[in-house]
């Protein structure tokens, strides 16, 4: 569904992504892991066209997404730190997004309900806590029924109950055969929702394997240990 070919991206002298090539298929839940600053967010931003690659290509269903914009109707994005116009109320943000995505008839407002956002509709975005902003981001990412979800550290900053709600939502969407990319540092969470793990280190693709293959490969029961083992082996 998404194919990344020889993607390179640098910010000034800093090479953030170096020749990354990978292929994601429909129905996959891929967890993107890697140390801080290894290019996880940059990769998501390149897929979304927010950061423009230096070289390489990104194909969605066989078509290049570079310099395009319509393809983003198939993607729901939840940023790591949601930034919203401070003087807008939650209600206004949500209704504005609906207005911009008028063509989507079937809205999925499950998370709006589960997170009780309606009760906070008249709060301004600037006054919200980080966690509440995350909830708004999550609700918006799922709202337009996209075929692809890109969630950048979705549960960081959420309280355990809200994180649980989000995880069960992710599993529900997975059953519908969507492609879901999650960047995360929490191994237990990855084990719960993901099937595949993609590991980036210093902008290079370290490995991209299914969780069971990783465990087998490292001969470990727990994913966190298995990954630590693989990382140490290759050093």
């Amino acid at each position, binding site marked *: 569904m998404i194919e990344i070919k020889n993607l390179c991206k640098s910010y000034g002298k800093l090479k953030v992504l170096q020749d990354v090539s990978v292929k994601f298929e429909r129905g996959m839940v891929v967890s993107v892991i890697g140390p801080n600053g290894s290019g996880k967010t940059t990769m998501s*931003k390149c897929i979304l066209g927010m950061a423009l690659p230096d070289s390489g290509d990104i194909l969605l269903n066989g078509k290049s997404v570079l310099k395009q914009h319509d393809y983003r109707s198939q993607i729901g994005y939840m940023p790591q730190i949601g930034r*919203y116009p401070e003087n807008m109320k939650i209600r206004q943000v949500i209704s504005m997004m609906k207005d*911009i995505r008028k063509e989507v008839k079937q809205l999925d407002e499950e998370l709006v309900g589960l997170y009780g956002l309606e009760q906070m509709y008249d709060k301004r975005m600037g006054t919200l806590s980080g966690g509440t902003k995350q909830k708004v981001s999550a609700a918006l990412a799922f709202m337009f029924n996209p075929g692809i979800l890109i969630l950048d550290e979705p549960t960081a900053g959420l309280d355990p109950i809200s994180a649980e709600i989000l995880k069960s939502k992710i599993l529900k969407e997975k059953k519908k055969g969507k492609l879901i990319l999650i960047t995360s540092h929490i191994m237990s969470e990855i084990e719960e929702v993901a099937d595949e793990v993609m590991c980036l280190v210093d902008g290079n693709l370290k490995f991209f394997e299914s969780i069971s293959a990783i465990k087998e490969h490292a001969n470990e029961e727990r994913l966190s240990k298995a990954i630590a083992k693989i990382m140490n082996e290759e050093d």
Partner: protein
Amino acid sequence: MKTIIKHVLYDILRSRIVLAYTVFMLVLAFGLFNLEGDPAKSLLSLLNVVLLVVPLISIVFATTHFYNSYEFMELLMAQPVNRKKIFLSEYLAVALSLSAAYVVGIGVPVLLYGANATALFLLAVGVGITFVFVALAFLASVVTRDKAKGIGVALLLWVYFALIYDGIVIFILYFFSEYPLEKASLAMIALNPIDLGRIVVMLNLDVSALMGYTGALYKSMFGSGTGVAISFGILLLWVLFPLLTSKRIFSKKDI
């Protein structure tokens, strides 16, 4: 694109700065018309104030608005919306709301105190200058991500066009006063949108008769229909050049 313009306009109206700008213009225009008995003279004073204030307000407001809208633009960029459309919608919404404030603020008093061709030119020039300086403001804003720097660049642009440029022109005219400079000074006027606007309005006032040979040359250049058309054409170039440059930079930017 219409939807985005609509939402940007909501945002601008919420801040009430544009409303304050309208009221300021109204007070200014009514004040000047009441101070002077002769509407032509008050129009001249109004021209001078307008050519100083309109560029300043336009460039400062547009720059701060652009930086304050960063989150909004970021939000839209993850949606199936063209970046260029986001940028142009921002531009049109800011330029149109400031122009509307100007046309109401200056237009209403002018209508009450005697509208003539010169007053119409004053209105048109003000709108043109607003569009030019909003475009320059957007150029200053896309060059740097730092808000303070962006506003600094914007203010420098204003100081240059409103104050320093005239000084340079006078210096050149004085220094080369032995030479025929009419053609050169025409070119120098075209290089500053504020001067261009001033000349267009002045030559449609009676005062141009006092400006001697150079005035006569200007009159033959700017006073005629084609002259006015050329001036507004140059003003349009002054809008398009910064606007298209900044649009190009913006569409290649990493967010």
